[in-house]
């Protein structure tokens, strides 16, 4: 029972973590809460559905193709919607992000319609029984690929020049350009990676919960945002830990306490964490610069 629930929690938490990473990366570099992120994740699901059903692509094609296509969409959204507002007050950019999210939702409503759609089984993973625990191939793929992606991101940010530039920009937006870092280029990279990860999460949600609709990004988006905040928004480690924590708390609350109180218990606990650590588990307290 405990192991089974842990496996369930790991699957849900990995998905939250992948989306939370996108929120965190963008916030870290631009101090922008990209509220369109949940809807970008929804677009990822639909694109994967399209590729799988109409182009009959297998999973190993769908994953990178969706990642690249959505990365480009992320760059485009940043270029058209957020860059013109970079100097504007931060609230304008947040409102724009909400607008972009609504735009993506309505465009899907208008083109594919509001009816929920079945998501194809991209892999025939089978079901494995180990003692009392049942694991599905889909679950294992989700967990393993998520871990690989998170490690890859960590290496990318820590070891590459672009990653270093991202960290520099996040540290000090005024000084970094003086050292020859192009803000526009780095911001584009950040958006590309963030939305790409959301797209992968979109595919995973489609595989794990194979009914998708244009509003699917809203609730998952909120929860991923909460994960990012709990972990300390802007921190990669924080997004991962926050996502997994939310997954474990949600599953745990439903498993051992009355499930009607699930969300209440879950969010009360998260509020308590913020009460003790207001900047999240791994967040640095915001430093006012003179």
């Amino acid at each position, binding site marked *: *029972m405990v192991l089974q629930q842990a496996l369930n929690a790991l699957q849900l938490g990995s998905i939250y973590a992948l989306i939370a990473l996108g929120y965190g990366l963008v916030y870290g570099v631009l101090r922008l809460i990209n509220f369109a992120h949940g809807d970008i994740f929804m677009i990822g699901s639909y694109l994967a559905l399209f590729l799988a059903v109409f182009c009959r692509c297998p999973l190993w094609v769908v994953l990178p193709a969706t990642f690249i296509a959505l990365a480009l969409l992320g760059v485009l959204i940043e270029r058209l919607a957020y860059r013109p507002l970079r100097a504007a007050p931060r609230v304008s950019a947040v409102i724009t992000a909400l607008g972009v999210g609504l735009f993506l939702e309505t465009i899907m409503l208008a083109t594919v319609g509001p009816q929920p759609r079945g998501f194809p089984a991209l892999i025939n993973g089978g*079901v494995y029984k180990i003692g009392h625990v049942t694991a599905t191939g889909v679950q294992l793929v989700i967990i393993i690929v998520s871990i690989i992606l998170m490690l890859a991101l960590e290496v990318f940010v820590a070891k590459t020049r672009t990653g270093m530039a991202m960290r520099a920009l996040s540290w000090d937006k005024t000084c970094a350009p003086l050292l020859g870092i192009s803000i526009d280029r780095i911001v584009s990279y950040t958006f590309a990676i963030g939305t790409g990860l959301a797209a992968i999460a979109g595919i995973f949600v489609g595989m794990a919960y*194979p009914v998708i609709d244009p509003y699917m990004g809203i609730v998952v988006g909120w929860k991923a945002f909460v994960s990012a905040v709990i972990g300390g928004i802007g921190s990669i480690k924080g997004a991962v830990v926050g996502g997994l924590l939310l997954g474990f708390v949600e*599953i745990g609350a439903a498993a051992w306490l009355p*499930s009607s109180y699930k969300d209440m218990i879950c969010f009360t606990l998260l509020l308590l964490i913020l009460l003790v650590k207001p900047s999240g588990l791994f967040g640095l307290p915001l430093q006012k610069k003179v």
Partner: protein
Amino acid sequence: MPRRFFLAIVTAASAALLLGCNRADVITVGLNVELTGSIPTVGKSCVNAAAMAAREVNARGGIALGDKTVPVKLRIEDNEDKAEGAAAVAQKFVSAGCVAMIGPNASRNAVPAAVVAESNKLLMISPWSTNPKLTEGKRYIYRACFTDDFQGVVVAAFVLKKLAFTKAAVLFDMASEYNKGIASVFKTEFTRSGGTLTAFESYATGDKDFSAQLSKIKQSGAEVLFLPNYYNEVPLQIRQARQQGFTGAIVGSDSWGSEEILKLGGDLMNGCYFTTHYAPDIATEKAKKFIGDYTALYGAKPDDVAALTYDACAMLFESIQKAASRDPEKVRAQLSVLSEFEGVTGAMRFTPGSGSPFKSAVVIQIKNNAFTYYDSINPL
């Protein structure tokens, strides 16, 4: 006094006009239907079925009122699928002195029309409105379908008597009135009738992961899982239940009754059951005759509205016959104690004090990716 004279003429003229409805040689029944607006097919089915019911009665000369037989005349009015339209039509029937009103069908129209009917003592039977509020605390308002919650009663009977399982679990959306209502009625009925509820789990609309709840349900040793949820969520729940190792039977409510569920759920849905009002392949004698006659007359299979309208008319005609009168008060008295009524959609009876019938439901089984009539189940 020309003015008074004029008034008298107007009153007499309008009285004559209105009484046209209440002539001694016909029984006028008002049909308050959605002919235009967003659900015109509902209105059309309702009119078709009512016309067929009236035609059948009139072929025998009508309804016997004491020593003479009086034909039935339908007065059809469009409520435009609007609350105010439905209320206005009800008002019209009141002024016209109709014996009773059949319709409106959608709850959004039926509830406001019921307010007018109730305050004017107009007997009303809605074929299709399932909102419990329609008949609550009202004397003159009836319906031919069961209320949403009532399915909890029928499913409990189905699980205990037909499937012969005594250990059941429920997973329901606690943020939706429909799901929550059925789940709690099921809980009460099932335990009252000797069953054991091993788990009573919930989630909120929009959740996609039910693994924790379903794993708990699996552990609880339930033999059957009841999912009174909407068709877009049910396939996910069934898939996850199977993934968590639950192998028992799965039962649902009429919210499953959309072809979409077959597309979304595919083979997973096969073998599951759900309750509903009607199926176009019901196998009872009465239903077979109705479906045959209707198809011959209109060239299409009757839908649930048609079947329920036909039952509403039949109940009304039977009550008029028993009352041997067109006095709405006497007809109402007969309708309120109607029992052993065998309709197309099942056996039903009314108990004094409630306008919602105690009736059997149709159980559909999903077989070979299609809805198939399985059985008609009476409440315990």
